[in-house]
């Protein structure tokens, strides 16, 4: 990737909720700062890693995108719409075929990234609501994601990167989908966790969001959460998603003006 492209940072503002929540948030941040474990990369709890995204790394594909969030590096290629495989059952509408794979060197231990089948399913679920499947009847759009380096929050980054690649391929979409996850540590919520942070989290929550339409396409939650925190975390994620989406839009517009 050339040095010309700037890394855009985005962080959800503390004004994600109403004013009342804002004050609460402020309080929490102070509490967080009192905690004796600053985040390893020097971020505050509600800071996302700098996001670097670019379209068009692979020329053979209809569309492609590269994303780098801290250590996490993902490349997504989109092929098609092309003829569905012969073994598939007949379908009037188009299909979205998603596949996530890890390079053998993506993880500290070689070939460890095994949960990619689950990720493939999750990627599909996050994107299918955003793609206008009826515009390419009976054909398939293949979305292949390759994680070059796994550095935490892999799935949200794959989702955001895949939606950028789909847009780059010119696939009709209702909206771009961006995704952000948060980890819960006791009372603290930290956004865009790294893999070290993910390994010790008490709970995690991931939101895939269509910012312009204000719709959540995918939401998963595990571990220990109290109700108030869920609302808070979802709003935090949604705000970060909107900001990430602005970066995506910028990249698409850059690519569009470059093409002329």
């Amino acid at each position, binding site marked *: 990737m050339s040095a010309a492209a700037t890394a855009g940072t985005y962080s959800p503002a503390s004004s994600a909720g109403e004013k009342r929540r804002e004050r609460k948030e402020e309080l929490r941040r102070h509490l967080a700062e009192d905690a004796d474990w600053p985040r390893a990369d020097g971020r505050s709890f509600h800071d996302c890693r700098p996001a670097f995204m670019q379209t068009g790394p692979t020329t053979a594909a209809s569309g492609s995108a590269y994303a780098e969030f801290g250590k996490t590096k993902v490349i997504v290629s989109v092929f098609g719409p092309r003829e569905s495989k012969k*073994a598939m059952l007949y379908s009037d509408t188009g299909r979205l075929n998603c596949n996530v794979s890890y390079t053998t060197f993506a993880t500290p231990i070689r070939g460890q990234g095994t949960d990619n089948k689950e990720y493939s399913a999750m990627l599909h679920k996050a994107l299918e609501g955003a793609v206008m499947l009826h515009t390419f009847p009976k054909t398939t759009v293949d979305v292949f994601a390759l994680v070059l380096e796994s550095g935490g929050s892999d799935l949200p980054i794959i989702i955001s990167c895949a939606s950028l690649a789909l847009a780059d391929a010119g696939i009709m979409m209702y909206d771009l989908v961006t995704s952000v996850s948060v980890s819960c540590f006791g009372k603290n919520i930290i956004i865009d966790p790294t893999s070290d942070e993910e390994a010790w*989290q008490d709970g995690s929550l991931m939101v895939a969001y269509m910012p312009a339409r204000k719709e959540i396409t995918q939401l998963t939650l595990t571990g220990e959460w109290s109700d108030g925190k869920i609302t808070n975390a979802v709003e935090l994620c949604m705000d970060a998603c909107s900001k990430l989406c602005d970066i995506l839009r910028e990249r698409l517009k850059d690519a569009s003006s470059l093409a002329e």
Partner: protein
Amino acid sequence: MEPNNEQFTNSIGDAPLHRCQHSPHLATAAFSSSVAAASGDPRCGAQPRLDGTVRLSTDRLDASGDGVAGGSFPHCGRPPPLWPHPGGLLPNRRPLALRRSIFPCPRPRLASAREFARRRLRRSPSREQRYAPAAPRTMVGLSEGEKHFIRGGIAQDLRTDGRRRLQFRAISVETGVIPQANGSARVRLGATEVIATVKAELGKPSILHPDKGKVSIFVDCSPTAAPMFEGRGSEEFSAELCVALQRCLLGGKSGAGAAIDLSSLIVVDGKVCWDLYIDGLVVSSDGNLLDALAAAIKVALSDTGIPKVNVSLSATTDEEPEVNVSDEEFLQFDTSSVPVIVTLTKVGKHYIVDATSEEESQMSSAVSVSVNRHGQIRGLTKRGGAGLDPSVIFDMISVAKHVSRQFISVLDSEILAAEAAE
């Protein structure tokens, strides 16, 4: 549905026994467990209510308890169970044959349509490595009229089998069905039937967590349940269920919020622990498999006895400790924190609980929330492609919390009854 107030009526006869005001925007949920032969309740489409029926209605009922909430059936010999009182143990189980006989066959027309769809699906399943977008169960062959009927019914709060939107089907629970396992349970939710087994084996704790045992969850969708569970389609579908269950039961990576306290499974620190294998089997599928499986796992865990282990520590610490497994003494799990899953399926503008396959085929999206006894959310999964407004999701979570409380208490009384019957 624009629910306004919530009342929790547990009515036997005319007066509600128990009522509490919760969050004001929730639905009125009248919840009654009734023992009945066929009753002429016009609103239920002459659907007789069974022993242990979970009724959650969103009717704005007044306290007089009209047809829906009123679970009084004078010709029934014994009093209906009072719950939420898990302790109030009543033998509310009936012989299976009797249950079957009073359960009328629902619309045969739909059944034949589904059968047709299944036969059509018998064709060769895809063999390639891809994620099938439509889960096999959504492929129910319905005509336009039938679809309209289902959607219209849900909009009017009267579903095709006579239930209301937030009403479960009859649930029946049996424990100890698999003698080979340490704990097992069979749960029937309408025509959906699942079996969950818990098997404990001695193993070695992982290096990363030497003070914790291991729990793994697997789900198998048997092709005997439905022809569509043949081949790869079922693999993906069961993997989806499996992931959802893991997410809801195993908690965060640090172990917080897990349904089972992993440190209770340790025998010797860093050396010996119990490996718990939780297996779910779908015997018959008519929608809402996730809720049924989670319920079955909860019941199976409460049925599980882990053999008591005597460890004779040898002098040198390097040696493998000698482990003596008792076959007489068993330890019971603390299952109080095992959550149940409540899936809210959105059809049109409304959402329903405990959807049948036909209803699931009409869903735009579904949110499965796992809630424990204390009303804490332990996991959440969304299915279906359509996007949801955040406020709708929050609304669904609070409804799921409310529904789960009643679901748990029904399950508790069923567990006690099942144990008593054993």
